[in-house]
């Protein structure tokens, strides 16, 4: 049982990490979700003992399941839910602004923007200004 659960967690986290490295942002979101589910499963099985449901009245002399991990998992699930909704809406905004969800295209645009800014800077250099003045003098 322990091995099976460990394997399930490993597959969830492994495939989540794989998807996280993909170019498509939707796949990245699915990767984040799988990772979080792996973590949630991990919490469930980090419980201290297994047994009957921890609800009063308790059956005498029987093992009671650890209720704390269940409470923690519930909290973690709620947080995952909120965060993935947020992430999806963020990606929707990216799609509206860039009309693409491909990270390579996004990175290309970033580079282009940086280069444009750098050429702006070099245009403002004092030497360049002098060159522009000289050219203007010639034109006159």
């Amino acid at each position: 049982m322990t091995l099976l659960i460990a394997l399930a967690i490993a597959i969830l986290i492994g495939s989540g990490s794989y998807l996280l490295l993909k170019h498509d942002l939707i796949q990245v979101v699915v990767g984040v979700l799988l990772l979080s589910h792996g973590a949630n499963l991990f919490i469930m099985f980090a419980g201290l003992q297994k047994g009957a449901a921890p609800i009063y009245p308790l059956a005498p002399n029987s093992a009671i399941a650890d209720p704390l991990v269940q409470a923690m998992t519930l909290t973690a699930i709620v947080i995952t839910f909120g965060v993935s909704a947020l992430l999806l809406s963020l990606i929707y905004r990216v799609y509206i602004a860039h009309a693409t969800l491909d990270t390579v295209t996004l990175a290309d645009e970033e580079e282009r923007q940086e280069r444009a800014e750098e050429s702006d800077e070099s245009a403002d250099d004092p030497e360049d200004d002098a060159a522009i003045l000289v050219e203007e003098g010639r034109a006159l």
Partner: protein
Amino acid sequence: MLVAPLAVFWIGGLLLAMADGRRRDIGYLGAVILTIGFGATAFLGRDVLTYGPVEIVAGSWPTGVGITLRADALGVAFSLTATAVLLVAYCYELAGRIESRTFPALTLFLATGLTGLFLTGDAFNFYVFFEVAMVSSYILAAYGEERRQLRAAVIFTVVNLLGSVLFLIGIVSLYHVTGTLDMATIAARIPIVEENPTLIAGTFLFVALGVKLGIFPFHFWLPAVYTGVHASVAAMFSGALAMIGAYGLLRIGAGMLPRELAVSSPVLIVLGIASIVYGGLQSVSRHDPAAVVAYSAIGQVGYILIAVAIGGGVGYSAAILFTIINSVNKTLLFLAGDQSGRYAGIAYAIGGLSVAGIPLTMGFWSKTALLRTSMVGEGFPLRVVLTGVVVLGGVLSLLYMFQSYGRTYWHANAGPAVRIAPTRTVIVLMLAIFTLVFGIWPEPLLALSQRAALTLIPGTP
């Protein structure tokens, strides 16, 4: 008393979330709520420093069952600094124009998360407040909602979500081996637990906190985000949010897992040195002032790592002092670097001097504390190497700070022609004066950091 700052930020955030933050009056209301919360934290801090730690168990549960909130000198020092940074960055944004309706509410939620995180005594609650702070910062990263900010926000969110998952796994592993979530009880039970499982849990937590701090192998997201987001948001991130990493290292590493920290101190020292050298060299080669400060942030956190690795009263108090002063420096640099004009230039220069550790600025005292720490390290060769690295880092920071200062402010026409908002310049100048005042009169900061360090050393109140 203990819940007052939390309640002020939380309720204030909920109320402002329903209002339109772009309106001036709502903006001022946000500043007032932040100031009240800061005042409440300061009162709490005075109580803690005079009468000792304050502790309450939520919901009147018996001790050991309910979730504890605990304020000690370390938590109070961090929450005061973080709240102050948020207040300054918020006022800076308010002095210009708030562009999004959620900005005031999100700042307050970020303050809630950070205050809660610094004042909790429960490991899982630490994670929950961590997420409260992170979720607000994911939305804040997109503030401005231009293409650049949106790209930065996606990177920031995805990387930090991965960090959060690792953090959660680490916390739950600690629960599994100790059977409790109360930080003090975990610390008490850790010595009787086998070392290997706790080392694995510690590694998860260290990686998660390392992502938050932006130390060398986990820094890859940081430059793109810090240069992409708005200046005031960058100040909040590097001034307040990054403190989570330093606090976690101190509270969880030094306070709860001292044995594991001692085992892994060589790793911490190597990563710290790598951060300092990498951050310094990258900064020297950058042109944009925001990029210079972003890479400088990577270099500066390396010092925290080294100070925590050496440990002891000297190391911990140096790490705390350095974190607080570094937060103020980074806030000053990000905000001043966003402005143009002579006075902003003066403020930027003072911030630069403080990062380099020149006397008369606050930074001098943090560098002094670090040099002292590097000289108490074990073994002569290590001491020489560490002292050398601290000095090298200082020289590099002097170099890149003045390159960037010269490039931005000496060629007056080379800077971007941004209109100068006088109120913003006043805020930046006040922060610079603050740096100078505590550079000349560092006694309160030194005393605070020593008091805070004592809370991490067992056997002292």
